[in-house]
C-alpha cells in the first residue's frame, strides 16, 4: 500500500509540527501557494511502520549475499555510520569557518594523503560526488591540459568496448567524440586495433584495469606507452580498484588521472543507489586542473583551497565540498584497514573470486575466460544453456532470488552473451560461497529438469517478475490519483 493510500485529511504527525504562526504581512499574496501539496497526511507511527515494512522488502548486504559484479557489495562497517553521525559532524555548516572545522578537515586531509599513496598519484581532489562525476572531472582535466598547450586538434577519446557506459557518456559530456577499441579474444585490449585507432586526434584513453571482463590487462605498460607516445593521456576508471588495492598502483601503471569509487573500494554504503563519492587523483602534470575545493594546510590550519588558490582548476562540480559524509565514512574505513588492511582487501577479494569461479566451473558453468585468472570478479556465460535449454542468464538471476541470494550483474559487459558478472568481495565467508555454488548447481539441475521454475521465477518475493515493457509504455511515475 502506498503511503498516500494511508493519508487522511486533517491527520498529522503532530510532534513534528512547528508552532502555529501569525499572518504573513510581509509576503505578497500573489507569491503565496494556494493549492495544498499532496504530501501524505499520516501519523508518525504510520510513517515508521510504512517505511520499516518497506525496508524489509529489500535485499541488502546486511541481509543477503549480494555478488553484483562491478559493484563491490562488501560489508559496510556500522562504525563508519555511527561515527560519521556524531552531532558535531552532522551539524557542521559547509560554509562555517575553518576554525569550526579543523576536526573534519583534518580527516579529509589525511584521506587525500591515503588515497594518493594507495593509487600512486601526486594529488587528489575529493570533490566529485560519484564515479561518473569523477570521470567527468578526469576527462575535463585532460581537456584542460591539451587546451592549455593549444593542442586543440585532440577531439577523440578512446574507450574499450568492455567499458562501463559512463565512460563514453562522460567523454561526450566534455565535448569529445568517442571511439571504441575492441577487446582481444583473451580479454585484453586489442593492441593492434589500438594502434590503428590512435593518432594526433587522440586526447586520451579511458581504461578500467582489471577490466570489466574480470581480467587484468597484462599489456598495460605497452598500452600506456602507445598512448603517451601519441600525445594522449590515460584515464583510469577506478571501479575495479578493489582487485588491486595495495598490489599495484594506477600511477605506477602509467595512468595520468584516476577516479575512485569510495562506495565500492572503501565500503561506504550504496544506499539503494547512492550517495557515492568519486575522488580523482592525478599525476603531476594534471595537478593544476583538479576540481576545487581541495583540502590544504595554511599556517598550520586545514583550509579549503578554492579558485583563488588553484587558478587553473576545472572548477566546482557541486555547491560545497562533495559528499562529505561519504568521505568521512571512507576515512574511518581506511583508518581501520590501515597499511596492511589495504592489500588484504585485494588478497581476499581475489581469493574468493577465483575459488568461486573454479567451483562454479566444476558445477557445470562456463567461464567467459577460462584460461585467465579471475581478479576480484569473473564472468560466466550461459550461451550454451540458452541454446540447449532455452534458459537465459536473466532466468538464472531471478531464480537465485528465490533462494535468498541477490543475483549477479546480468548482461554486462555487453560483449559477452548471456553473461553473469560475479563479484563475491573479500568480506564473504567460504561457507556462503559454498552455499551459493550449491544453489547454482541446483538451478542448473532445475534448468534441465523443470525449466519453468526458472522461467517464471521469482516465486517467493513480494512480487513476481515485473513487466518492464509496460512500465515504459504505460508510463506511471507519479501517483496519478494525486491530482484527482
Amino acid at each position, binding site marked *: 500500500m502506498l503511503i498516500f493510500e494511508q493519508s487522511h485529511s486533517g491527520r498529522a504527525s503532530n*510532534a*513534528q509540527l*512547528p*508552532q502555529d504562526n*501569525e499572518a*504573513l504581512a*510581509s509576503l505578497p499574496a500573489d507569491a*503565496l*501557494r494556494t493549492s495544498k*501539496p499532496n504530501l501524505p*497526511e499520516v501519523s508518525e507511527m504510520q510513517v515508521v511502520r510504512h*517505511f520499516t515494512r518497506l525496508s524489509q522488502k529489500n*535485499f*541488502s548486504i546486511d541481509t543477503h549475499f549480494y555478488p553484483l559484479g562491478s559493484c563491490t*557489495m*562488501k*560489508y559496510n*562497517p556500522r562504525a563508519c*555510520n555511527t*561515527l560519521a553521525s*556524531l552531532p*558535531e*559532524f552532522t*551539524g*557542521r*555548516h*559547509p560554509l*562555517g*569557518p575553518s576554525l569550526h572545522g579543523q576536526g573534519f578537515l*583534518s580527516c579529509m586531509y589525511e584521506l587525500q594523503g591515503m588515497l594518493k599513496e594507495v593509487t600512486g598519484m601526486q594529488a587528489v581532489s575529493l570533490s566529485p560526488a560519484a564515479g561518473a562525476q569523477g570521470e567527468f572531472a578526469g576527462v575535463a582535466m585532460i*581537456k584542460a591540459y591539451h587546451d592549455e598547450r593549444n593542442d586543440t586538434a585532440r577531439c577523440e577519446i578512446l574507450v574499450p568496448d568492455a567499458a562501463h*557506459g559512463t565512460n563514453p*557518456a562522460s567523454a*561526450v*559530456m566534455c565535448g569529445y567524440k568517442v571511439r571504441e577499441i575492441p577487446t582481444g579474444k583473451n580479454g585484453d585490449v586489442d593492441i593492434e586495433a589500438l594502434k590503428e585507432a590512435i593518432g594526433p586526434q587522440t586526447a586520451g584513453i579511458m581504461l578500467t584495469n582489471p577490466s570489466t571482463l574480470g581480467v*587484468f590487462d597484462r599489456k598495460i605498460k605497452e598500452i600506456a606507452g602507445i598512448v603517451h607516445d601519441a600525445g594522449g593521456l590515460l584515464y583510469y576508471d577506478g571501479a575495479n580498484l578493489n582487485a588491486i588495492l595495495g*598490489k599495484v*598502483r594506477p600511477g605506477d601503471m602509467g595512468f595520468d588521472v584516476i577516479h575512485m569509487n569510495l562506495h565500492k573500494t572503501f*565500503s561506504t*554504503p*550504496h*544506499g539503494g*543507489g*547512492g550517495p557515492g*563519492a568519486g575522488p580523482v587523483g592525478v599525476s603531476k602534470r594534471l595537478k593544476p586542473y583538479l*576540481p576545487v575545493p581541495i583540502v590544504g594546510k595554511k599556517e598550520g590550519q586545514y583550509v579549503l583551497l578554492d579558485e583563488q588558490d588553484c587558478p587553473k582548476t576545472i572548477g566546482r562540480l*557541486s*555547491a560545497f565540498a562533495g559528499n562529505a559524509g561519504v568521505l568521512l565514512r571512507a576515512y574511518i574505513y581506511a*583508518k581501520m584497514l590501515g*597499511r596492511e588492511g589495504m592489500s588484504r582487501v585485494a588478497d581476499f577479494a*581475489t581469493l574468493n573470486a577465483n575459488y568461486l569461479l*573454479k*567451483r562454479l566451473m566444476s558445477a557445470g558453468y562456463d567461464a567467459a575466460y577460462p584460461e585467465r585468472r579471475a581478479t576480484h570478479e569473473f564472468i560466466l556465460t550461459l550461451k550454451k544453456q540458452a541454446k540447449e535449454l532455452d534458459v537465459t542468464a536473466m532466468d538464472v538471476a531471478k531464480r537465485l532470488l528465490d533462494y535468498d541470494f541477490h543475483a549477479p550483474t546480468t548482461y554486462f559487459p555487453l560483449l559477452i552473451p548471456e553473461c553473469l558478472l560475479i563479484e563475491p568481495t573479500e568480506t*564473504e565467508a*567460504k561457507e556462503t560461497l559454498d552455499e551459493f555454488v550449491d544453489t547454482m548447481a541446483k538451478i542448473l539441475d532445475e534448468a534441465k529438469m523443470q525449466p519453468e521454475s526458472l522461467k517464471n521465477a521469482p516465486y517467493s*518475493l*513480494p*512480487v513476481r517478475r*515485473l513487466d518492464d515493457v509496460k512500465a515504459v509504455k504505460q*508510463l506511471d511515475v507519479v501517483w496519478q490519483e494525486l491530482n484527482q
Partner: protein
Amino acid sequence: MPFIPHSEQDIEQMLSVIGADSIEDLFDEIPASLRCGDLEKIPQGMNEMEVTRLLRDRAAQDGLPLCFLGAGAYEHHIPAAVWEITTRGEFYSAYTPYQAEASQGTLQLLYEFQSMMASLMGMDVSNASLYDGASALAEAVLMAVRANKKSKSRKILMPVTTNPVYRSVTEAIVNNQDIELVAVPYDSETGQTDLNALDSFSGEDFSALVIPQPNFFGVIENVDALTAWAAENKMLSIAVVNPVAMALLKPPGEWGQTGVDIVCGEGQPLGVPLASGGPYFGFMCCKQKHVRQMPGRIIGRTTDLDGKEGFTLTLQAREQHIRRSKATSNICTNQGLLVTAATIYMSLLGPEGLKKVALNSHKNTQLLRNRLQAIKGVKTVFNAPNFHECVLQLDMDVKQLIDTLAREHHILAGFEVSAHYPELGNALMVCATETRTENDIEQFATTLDTLLNG
C-alpha cells in the same frame, strides 16, 4: 584482519580448489615490475575502539556553534525517525534496484518520492534525484538545450541573483559543450532580477531562462512575470527553488500562464543534515512532454506476472548503461539514501507541517531582520519581501566580523555576500530557520551590537 572472515584452514582449502600455492600466486598475471611495495605513508590500522576515540576527539574540535548561516544549506529540525529508519541496513546497504523484485522497498519509496516532489513543485513528473542542487541546475541547462526544439541556440539566460556557486558549477559542467550562460542583472533597490534588463534580450534566441525562487539574496522574485516572459520569447523556463519554501510559495508548475518547463533545486532542507556540505541531493521535475529528456533514474509503477502492482526502473533507454555515449547524462548513481530520508521527512511533516516549517523560518528571519536593523551600524540592503534569508549592510569588515563572532562567541553570523557581490560593500546575509528561538536571536543581536557599538 578487519572484515575478512577467512581462517587459515579456509585459505588452504580454497587455494587447493583453485590449484594455487599461495594467495600471491593469484596475482601472477600482473607484471612483477608494476607491483608496489608497502604503502608506507598509510598509517597502521586501528581497531574500532581506537578509531572511535579518534573521531570523537575530532568531532569535539569542531563544536556546534549557533548558526545563522544559510546560503544554500539550511539547519532544519530533522525528526529522529528519519535517520533511525534511513540507516536501517536494508536501505543503507542495498544497491541500485537492478533486481526489481528484490528491491521493492527502495523502488516503492522512490516512486513515492517522485510523487511527493512532483506535487510539491506542481509539476507532472520527477526523477529519483541527482547529486546536488548545483549540479542539478547544470543538468537542467543541458536538458533544456536538448529539449528546446524551437531554439538552435546554446545560450541560457542566467540571472545574477542565482546562487553564485550554482552558476560556477553549471559553468564548469556545461562549458565543454559550448553552452553559454548569459548574465541577467538585478535591480539594486529590490534585489530582484531586473525585468527591464531582461527585456533587452527580447527577440534573441536563447534555449532557456533560469528563475531562482527565492533568489540567492533570499528575495522573492516576480516569478509569474519571468515565466511569462520566457514563454513569450520561446525559451524554456528552468526554476531553481528551495523545496521547503514551495510549501508556502506558489510552486513553479503554477507560475505564469502554463508553469515552468523544468524545476530543479537542492533537496537538503528536506531532512538532510548540514554535514559539511554533503551528501545532499538534487531534485528535478519537469512537464510530461520533456520526460524523455530528463536525466537520472526514474521509477515506474507496473504489474508482475500475476497482475500485482510493483515498481521498477523505467525509461532506462535514456541512461548511460544502455545508451552509452548517447545518454542524456553520464549520471549513474542517484542519492538514494538522502531521498529515503527526504521521503520519510516529507511524510512526517505532511503538507501542514512543511508549510509551518516555511512559515516559522520566515517569521524568525523577519524577527532577526527587525532586531538587527535596529542596531546602529546595520541596515537592510534590499527593499523587497524575503523568505528566510536577508542581506544586511554593516559598518564593519564582514570577514572580520564573521571571524570574531565564530572565534569568541561560537556564533556563525552569516554569509559574506561581498565575496561574490563586491558592489554591495560590507554585506552579510543572515538566515533563521524554525530552529532558531527568540533567545537565540536576542543573543546574536546583543553580541553584534556590542561588537559594533561597544
